[in-house]
């Protein structure tokens, strides 16, 4: 478990005391206590992640390693998107997950109004700017644009956002991604 050595035994015994009472919520609480540096959204993440894993019957011995891995990734993405229902990346991710597995149990997106502005606007802008700006500035902007395109591919739903929204969404997405990685790391440590 990922515990500090000084209060390891205390936390572990507290954790074990919940085992006799087999209610799911209390066990979860014990697991959450055992996690270092928990912030509210990480606790929610863990809970949603574990619930999703349960729904996918993850302990089924009949599953292949690859099937189980896919189920784990799916549950992780779903948990991440559920914690932030308002974000655009979250809705894009949910839509993506629904398409992948075509299940009606996946939560539908709250709002689907996507802005298809991306390509048209940038072409027009690039043409106007290159005429006016010095060559060095134009090249620099080109590099930024290319990098921005890469970012759009990485962030879910990034293709249909304007610059400002993209940066905003990236910030939010990064936070959740970091939290998800931390949650999964703790789970791995707990099982090893």
């Amino acid at each position: 478990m990922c515990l500090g050595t000084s209060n390891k035994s205390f936390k572990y015994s507290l954790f074990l005391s919940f085992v006799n009472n087999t209610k799911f919520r209390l066990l979860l609480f014990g697991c959450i206590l055992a996690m270092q540096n928990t912030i509210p959204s990480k606790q929610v993440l863990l809970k949603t992640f574990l619930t999703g894993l349960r729904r996918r019957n993850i302990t089924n011995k009949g599953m292949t390693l690859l099937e189980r891995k896919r189920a784990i990734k799916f549950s992780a993405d779903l948990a991440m998107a559920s914690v932030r229902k308002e974000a655009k990346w979250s809705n894009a991710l949910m839509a993506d997950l629904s398409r992948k597995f075509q299940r009606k149990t996946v939560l539908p997106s709250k709002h689907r109004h996507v802005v298809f502005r991306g390509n048209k606007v940038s072409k027009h802008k690039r043409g106007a700017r290159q005429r006016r700006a010095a060559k060095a500035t134009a090249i620099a902007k080109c590099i930024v644009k290319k990098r921005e395109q890469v970012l759009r591919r990485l962030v879910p739903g990034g293709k249909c956002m304007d610059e400002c929204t993209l940066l905003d969404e990236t910030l939010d997405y990064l936070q959740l991604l970091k939290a998800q990685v931390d949650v999964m790391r703790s789970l791995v440590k707990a099982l090893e």
Partner: protein
Amino acid sequence: MTTSRSSITEAEINELISKLHALLPEARRRGTHRASAAKLLKETCSYIKSLHREVDDLSDRLSYLISSMDVTTSQAEIIRSLLR
């Protein structure tokens, strides 16, 4: 939150850039000391890619660990009852 391109101020973009800069881990931050937009975007992209890779790797390990959970380990039993 502004909706049209022309009314996005320089200050807002700078604020977003500095927030992004703050989110990157320390090791990556040193390389982009001046926080120029291009370098920052590059670092952000490579950071997101590395996080995706890590999720992939962790999913692999979790899949293996769950499939080979030892019955006698009390910790494994706890996790297993969480997942049942």
